[in-house]
């Protein structure tokens, strides 16, 4: 198994928004989903996850609601807002640009 990579500054927000674009989820679910989809490369600790979730919520990009979880416990579910959707598109675009640019440089040299 490759070593888990440290998340690039600022990409956590993007990952959270992208994950929530599928369906509303609680914090643990988000962490698990990111870990699974990235094949264990990206591990999000609660220490950075929850401050990020709260930050996004304060910004109004996601909203939270207490609902019953799959095992019937009360859990806080986060969902993307309209502003969040727009923000996600913008962030994906800027990520693509960045990644493309980095790839170009790497290919060139």
């Amino acid at each position, binding site marked *: 198994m490759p070593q888990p990579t440290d998340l690039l500054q600022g990409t956590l927000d993007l990952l959270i928004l992208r994950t929530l674009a599928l369906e509303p989820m609680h914090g*643990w679910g988000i962490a698990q989903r990111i870990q699974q989809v990235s094949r264990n490369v990206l591990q999000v600790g*609660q220490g950075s996850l*929850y*401050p990020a979730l709260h*930050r996004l919520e304060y910004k109004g990009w996601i909203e939270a609601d207490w609902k019953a979880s799959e095992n019937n416990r009360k859990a*806080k579910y986060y969902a993307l807002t309209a502003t969040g959707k727009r923000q996600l598109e913008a962030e994906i675009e800027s990520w693509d640009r960045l990644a493309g640019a980095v790839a170009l440089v790497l290919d060139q040299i």
Partner: protein
Amino acid sequence: MLKEFFTRLRFLFASKSHGEVDEELRFHLDQQIEANFRAGMSSEEARRQAAIAFGGVERTREQCWEERPGYLMETFVQDLRYALRGFRRNPTFSATVVLTLMLGIGSTTAVFSVVDRILFRSLPYGDADRLVSVGLIAPIEPQEFMLGGSYYEWQDNQKPFVSLTSESWTSPCDLTESNPARLDCARVEGNFLPTLGVSPVVGRNFTANEDRPNGPRVALITYGLWQSRFSMDPAAVGKLIRIDGNATEIVGVLPKDFEMPRLQAADVLLPQTLDVAAERRADPGHPMWAYARLKPGVSVEQAKAELEPLFDYSLRLAPAPFRKEVHLRVRSLRDRQVHEVSLAAWILLGLVLTVLLIACANVTSLLLARGASREKELAVRSALGAGRMRLLRQSLTESLTLSVAGGAAGCFFAMLLLRLFIAMAPDGMPFLGKARVDLRILIFALATSLLCAVFFAVMAGMRRADPEALTGRTRLNLRHAVLRRWLVIAQIAASVVLLAGGALLVRSFWNLEKQSLGMNAENIVTAAISLGQTSYPTPESQMAFFQRLERNLRYGPGIAAFAISDSLPPGGSHRDQVYASLQVEGKPVLASGTGGTVASRWVTPEYFRALQIPIVQGQGFTEAELTSNDHFVVLSKSLAGRLFPSQNPIGQRLHLHHGAPAASDPACVVVGIAADVKNGGLAGSEEPEYYQLRRNRAEDWDRSSVLILKTTLPPGATDAWIRSQVASLDPTAPVDIRTLSERVGKLADRSRFEMLLVGFFACTGLVLTVVGLYGVIAFFVVQRTPEIGLRMAVGASRADILRLVLANAFRLIVPGALLGLVLAAALSSVLQSLLFNVSAHDPATFAAATGLLILVALFATLIPGRSATRVNPTVALRCD
């Protein structure tokens, strides 16, 4: 965007509870445990692994809390409250910092506002940086001027300028209408306004046709006159006004901020209507002042070089002996305007920057001391979990609070100080009356104070909290102690420089006030009267007026002596001519050079008695000579010595205007030698002088004269009587009544102002320095209290302890004073031109300044020194 804002706003007021975050985190942990359990771990192991993976809960909870909008605001308010509490606990410290900042920022702002008006103000002309003043300088007139004889030659042939223009004389003129008024009329060339880049707000400039002899009479009026006489009615243009009895059409109104390039007062501009052809032939022609607009890309130096051939032409017109003393000058208009105040302005700027430096050193030193004594507190806060950023923010808040308070106090202080400056300033300081606390400067000063705050905060906040401080032992922080000592040494040095400068100016002012004027100005009332053009068109009518006035006033109550002159000593405004134009009958005139200038006055016989100027030889003017056909002259002792080195001057005949037509250069008989009188201003050099008798002949009189009355009454008692006597002859004649002492005192205004300003800054600097020194010594005593206690316990006497403190103070004072003396000696020579009869390196003055500083510094040391001797060894030792 808007929605985001509202979301933030909502959360700002309805904050989430801590419990909600806890519950969320607990859910996360439980999920992890369950997952581990499902992966086959024992329940114990699942719990353990989940807890390890999860990490610290408290930190996460804190971080979630810190993400709150308004968190920064909240901690800021918290920090602010904490800072204010701290200041209240230590009011001396906070008051000192705020006062220091107030003095520093306030005086800097006030002085910058003044200096800005003088040195850097924008002139009210279009593209004023391209304007230059052009002309000749000669011993008789140190400011550049032109003569009609060569001006037009220059105008035709000059290359470096877009245009060259001139103004000639400015003189009082009368608006003779239903509501008469005395105005100042300036005569200017037709292209005057276009060259300066000024266009009338209403109406038009003069046309070429109007600037010819006998052209149509037209005038441009100033905005002020337009406002006061025509209520800003645009229809004023085209109206006829009577100036000195002549109907003159107003063709335009000048802009509000218009001023003459020489800054003289003027209400009306008239075309100078010189006969150009006659001027070209004339020698020397009309005196005038010339200004020009440089062509693009031409520098002042280039322009001067290009004018050299024209200057040579003008030189050829001048009498051969004078040529060496005439020079060409081209300089920017701004330089011409500020020529003599600029030095004072720069010195002022230097002074205030020194004060600012001392103030900054003081604040730094105070904050360093506070930082050192709060090391323990810092360590505690750090140990309790305050992060570096958090500590930095807290110290930033503290400094910001102090600087904002200091800045605000500084603003008020600046306004106060500026008002004081304007009230104190003599008339000679141009623009000072218009100085305002400039918004830009205020912002600059506030920015400076904020910058200071950030600097201090970072200085204090960057320090890593030292856990050692928690042990409770007081230790000397060597690095800061050394820095503070250097700051105090620098302060003392700067203070010595300021004090030395102040002392030099006080000395100079003292010399100025105490010098002998050569006459007695006590109990002399003077009344300057200038008669109108229309009421008194001829010298006969002018003489008649003054002689009637003399008859009415001479034998009035308390009048001991009465004289009429055309000017008064010691001010510099009198007739001037070159020495070379004096010719003793039967002797050749001076062979080469001008021989410098000679002053002259027209006086009535009692002039010398009224002013108590001794006649040292001969008998002076007598009543009998008043009706004589001959001309009489009294020489000053220095002039007599020069003209008649080895013979008795009395009875000799003298021609006063050599080279002039014989009719206007009659032989004058020398009837007396008067003692020398100060006549070139208080600080100026004395000129040789002669007096001509005003006989009962119209040719000896002109329209402006000064009455000199020696009274036995208290000052002010005769003013109303003189005024009523003048009014009974001519109610419209303006009279300026003042005692001669007042007139003399006014001449010293300038140096009094300079002395007070420098003195003020020297005192401010001294106070700040003493505060700084006191702070360092007091801090030294506090930090060494255990050591002092120990010394006393093992037998040191109080005198020993005092000696310890004093020795420490002397290690600051002596190098500071020495450094200051060296700096003062190096810098004081810039003051030389402001000083009168005292050298810029006067040892006695320097010694006095240093002595004063050492005395005050010792006093500042004695207070903490005394408290050191009162240390109770038992208490001091138990403390640690």
